[in-house]
Each structure stands twice: as C-alpha cells, then as structure tokens.
C-alpha cells in the first residue's frame, strides 16, 4: 500500500515533473485532471503557488479549455462526438437519448456519480459515425437501441462489482 497523499502534495509533484515553468501550465492541468478526474480548487491553488503565478492565471487556463472540468466527474464519461460527419449521421438523436435516459445534460453528472455526459467536437473517427466514446472505448455506428444497450451493460457491470 502506498501512503495516501494530499491533493496539494500530489500537485506539487506534478508541477515539479514538468520543470516548474509556467509554459507547462496546460500539461500540469492535464496531469492534475488525470490524477483527480477533475480540477479540485485545492490543486489549482497549490499549482499557482508552486509555479509562482497568480491564481487568476491558472483559472484563466482552467476555464478556457473545454477539456478541463472544475466539477467532479462521474465514474463513466460518455462523450458524444458532435463532428460534422457524426452530425449528418444523427448525433443529435443520440444526444437526446442519453439526456433522457440519464436525466442529465452535457457537462453534468448523474446524482449517483456514475455517469458524466460530455460532447466533443470531433474524435477523428469519422468513418464510424455517429461515434460515442465511453471512457477510452470507441463505439461506432451507434443507434438508439445501441445507446440503451450500452447504458444497460454499464449498469449491470456496476451492480456486479
């Protein structure tokens, strides 16, 4: 067992790994998000201090880029591709289905913390459109009944474990 490490300490490690320079800001935020699944306030404060920049500078980058989330995200992250190729093949229909089934809008997380819904501009798997990426798995040529199956499968897996 490794010892639990505080958010601030982990953040300082990350900043150090990237050399401490402020040009590494985005890489630092990416690593923080990877470690905590979102950007905790504590981590942003620690990062500002460790990189010797004002908090506003960290906040600017953290809120400018869509990949960053200031809110905790769910265990399973559903990303609906909204690229043009997926759009003309009916991505909006899939988004509707996810929204009604999960009861959340893009950018939100279900109350049980199981699912977060996000949209992405294009994942670059256009030939498979419409595409939905769940965690790191690409699902291609997704239909409404496939959406139902995917959610059901994740829910069943969750029940087992």
């Amino acid at each position, binding site marked *: 067992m490794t010892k639990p490490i505080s958010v601030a300490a982990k953040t300082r490690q990350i900043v150090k790994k990237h050399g401490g*320079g*402020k*040009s*590494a*800001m*985005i*890489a630092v*935020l*990416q690593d923080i998000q990877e470690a905590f699944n979102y950007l905790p306030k504590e981590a942003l404060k620690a990062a500002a201090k460790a990189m010797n920049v004002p908090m506003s*500078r960290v906040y*600017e*980058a953290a809120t*400018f*880029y*869509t*990949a*960053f989330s200031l809110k905790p995200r769910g265990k399973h992250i559903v990303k609906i591709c*909204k*690229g*043009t*190729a*997926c*759009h*003309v*093949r*009916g991505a909006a*229909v899939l988004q*509707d*289905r996810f929204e*009604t*089934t999960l009861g959340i809008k893009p950018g939100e997380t279900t109350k049980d913390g199981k699912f977060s819904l996000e949209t*992405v*501009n*294009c*994942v*670059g*798997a*256009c*030939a*498979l*459109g419409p*595409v939905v990426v769940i965690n*790191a*798995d*690409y*699902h*291609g040529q997704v*239909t*409404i*009944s496939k959406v*139902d199956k995917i959610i059901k499968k994740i829910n069943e897996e969750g029940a087992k474990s």
Partner: protein
Amino acid sequence: MNENPDTQARQIIDNLTLYYGPKKKFIAICAGTGCRASGSLKVKEALEAELKKQNLSEVDVLATGCLGFCEKGPMLVVHPDKYFYQHVRVEDVPEIISKTVAKGEVISRLLYRHPETKKTLFREEDLPFYKKQLRVVFGQNGMIDPSRIEDYFAINGYQALGKVLAEMTPEGVISEVKKAGLRGRGGGGFHAAVKWEGVRKAKGDPKYVIANGDEGDPGAYMDRSLMEGNPHSVIEGMIIGAYAVGSNQGYIYVRNEYPLAVTHLTKAIADAREMGLLGKNILGTDFSFDIQITKGAGAFVCGESSALFASVEGRAGEPRAKYVHAVEKGLYDKPTVLNNVETWANVPLIINKGADWYNSIGTEGSKGTKIFSLVGKINNTGLIEVPMGTTLYEIIYDMGGGIPNGRKFKAVQTGGPSGGCIPESLLDIPVDFDKLYEVGSMMGSGGMIVMDETSCMVDVARYFLEFLKEESCGKCVPCREGVRRMSDILEDICAGKGREGDVEILEAMGKAIADGSLCALGGSAPNPVLSTIRYFREEYDAHIRDHRCPAGVCKALITYSIDAEKCTGCGVCVKVCATQAITGEKKKAHVIDKDKCTRCGACIQSCKFDAIHVK
C-alpha cells in the same frame, strides 16, 4: 573511410536502409483508431499466435496506422501478393495463415466485392476506392508499424535527411521546396518556402519550428492518421525544415482528442533521439535540433497560429492581431515556422524525389497531392489521397462510390467551419486551393462531408454557427457577439420562428463579421451561412415562409406519422419510444400521438418496414 561528418551522415542512413530494408513477406493489419474500434488488435494478436503455431514466425505482422478504407475495417493486406481482406474476424485467422500466407491462395469470402459488377477484387489497387488515388504520402502507412523506427528505415526513411545534411545548404533546401510549390495543407494554402525564407532571414534567436497537429475541423482526421500511422515522416520533415531555417527547437502541437497520436509520436521522438537523428549533433554533424510534444486541451481556435503559440506558452489560446507576422515574432516573440502535419510529411518526399517530380503533380497553382477525409452520407467512407485538381465528381462517385440507400446527393461541405457547402452543379470543378475558394468554400485541412437529400442545409449552417459560437475565444467583438447573433437567427429559423428579411440580415452581418474579426476564425465564420444561402436559398425560404423543413430534419417543422399500409404492428417502435407516443394493437397498424411525440427519431431507426414518415 570518409572523415567529413556531413558525408558520413549520408552513409549512416544508407547503411540503415540497407540493413533493415525492404520487407517481403508480411501482413499489414490496420490498427488506426477506426479499425481498433472494430476490433483489429484482437485480430493482430490472433495472427501472431497462429503464425507461431503454424511455424511461420518469419512472417512479420505490422500493426499499421490507418489504411484509409475505414468503412471495411478491420482490414489487412497480405504481402507480397497484396491481397486485401476486409471485415476480418479472429475466426478467419487460421485460414488466412494456412491458405494465403502459406500457399498464396485467396479466400474469396474476405475479398472486396464490386458493388455493381459483383466481381471479387483481389488487390488493394484494384478496388475502385483506391484505383484513382495517388498515395505518395499516405500510402506509406501500409508499409510500416509506426512504433518501429526500423520499419521507417526500411522504406527509405530519413534518406531525405541524410541527403540534406550531406549535400544541401539550408538555402538549397528552401529553394528546392519553393521550386516544388509546396503550399500549406492546414487551410491557408500559404507557400511553405516563403515562410521558411522569412524565418531564415529574420533576426532573433532562438528560432522555432512547429507542427500544427491541432486538426480541429470536425469531420477531418488525416493529420491524426499521419501522426498515428507515420510519425517519423512528420519528424523527418521538421528536422529538414529546422535545418533550413536555422532552428534548434521544435514543437508538435497535438489535439487533446488524439491519445494514440501522442503515444506514437512520443515513441518516435525517443527512438529518433536514440539513433542520433534528434538532439545534439545530428548524425555527427554540427546541426542540433530537438522536438517536444505539446498537448492541446480542446479549443478549436488553437489551430490559429497566434492562439497556438499562446497555448504552447501555457496561456489561454487567444489570437492576436496579425500586423506582426509569426515569421518575425511567433512563439515567445521569436521567429517561428508553423506548418501543418501533412505539410511536414510532404517535405521528405520533395527532397527524395526532387522538386520537378513534385511539381509535375497537381494543377498550376496547387502542386502535389492532398489527403481528404471523405465522410458523411457516402458509401466508401475513409481517407483518400489524390493529385490536386481531381474533380469532386471523381472523388465522390468514383472513389466514394456515391450516396447510400439510393438517395440523391445534395452538397459536399469542405473546409470545416471556415468552409462552405458546394452543390451538385459544381461537382465538375477540379479541387485545388484556388478553385474551392472561388466557389465560396476552401480547402481547409481536407475534410469533405457529403450530404444527401435528408440533410437540411439550414440546419448545417446552424450547426456550424453553434460550433463557432462555442469556440469563439471572446477576444474581439465582431466574432464574439456577431457569431452569437447569427447563431440565434439560425436557431429561430430552424425552430419555425424565422422572419422575412432574416436572410438579408444574415448576409449583412456575415460581411461585417468577416471584415471586422481579429483572426481567421471570425473572418471565415460566416462562410457556412453565406455559402448555403448562395446555393440553397430555397431551403431558407421554405423554413421562413412555409414553416417547412424540406429535408425533414428541423424538429419544430416536422411531424411523424405511420403509414398504415406498411405498418405490420410488430410493436418494436412502441418499445423504443421514450415518451409512449406510439400505441396500437399487436399485428394492426399503429398510430403516433403528435402531441406526445418528441421527434427523436428512435422509431424510424427501429422500424424495419420503412413505415414511419416524416413530413
């Protein structure tokens, strides 16, 4: 032994080419993101296990980058016969090894069947999708495993670098690229050599070389496929560019959404360093250069040069006014060459085969080939590489195989959110930088999204403006406020609340936004609207005047109904309907309650009898 370090550089590369050089018997299985999603990695494992089992371990299995014909994945090519197998499953593997690899026999069920003649076609180059292509850049993907530098040596990789270091001056490299007529593949079509020359001459130290791999245009993924499938070609191009302009530090800016590209580039850079191709004193010469990867974090505007610099510097990606050019003041206000990934990948080719060869391909103003992603409502989706000047018709019908389900072609969208929609009447135009611009669109990075009669052009314009509204960085007013207002008007039109005169307002605003915006995002943001008004005005009128969406897309303007003659009463639609809007007795025609119906489309997707109509 020659003591001259420059000549020695050439010899090192020659030896590597000779040592690794060309493979004969191997299986190339596509492991691009698309085919991975279809299960190609499992097939790859099975191939390796089966080769071992059948004592054929000398046959190499290459997990290649994208082979282009993504529609048919997982796919593989068996060399040396080059038999092309599509939709390969793990169960097919033992037979592929025992028949095709061991005895050279084809397995006809795995071959591509011509959709019209129904004849099976054996080889990649026989397929209509590949036949008219000229895959000088992208074709290399099929010959290498991108995670192995030795595979790149085997196909003459880094030969161009060896030649440059041994025989060419920096000015000589620039003049060769200039003679070739290489124009930037990222959208602008600016002459690469002019940028290079500018940076070479600019005062300031250090100088930077950057590959733009931000590929933000939705519907475009050729840069992804190059970074994933042939990372060394991009790296080699950058090293040559750095030598030409006098730079020692380079960056590759990769989109956040491309994790596999980052993995392959990282490995490629490490391998190149180890072989002395990157780092201090490259191949023993006094030229030093290294590359660092910077990951984006999901911002379309970062494909714009000055926004990209800001992002590499660790700030929010906001562009700045362009009276200061990047060649003088780019990254950290130092002279900077920024070229797109595909542009860099063209450089080794120009050096190896010569400017005259390169110049002989393409049209008068646009030389060489271009990779396009052919997606949307088209039979053969995937990536194609064609000589500049190929007509849209050839691309869509000869290579793309036309429109699926017997539907009618309506438009092809090129150039991403900065581009426009091109109608059927213009399908005969040759595709190059200038021609696309003339018809109100642009090359962009090379996305071609095909739309059929079920695509609503007003909805497409709305879609792009919504996209651009979200992606506008907010720095300048015309883009931040103007795009938002244009988007609002389009929302209204699609919701049936359009007013007479809206189209004219959109046109006037479009012109003002294009003139007044700070960067190309705002400058070209009105294009999707203006080009759809130009060619599809009648669809706007139908929405505004008749409250009708002719393509049956805009939810507020359509109703669903069930054709009682076609409905068999199977009840499948009842199960998928989220609002319980469909009712009916089993085996009798069902009905839709129009008030409850949200027009989500679930029933249409589930109906096997084509009984649900949209009006």
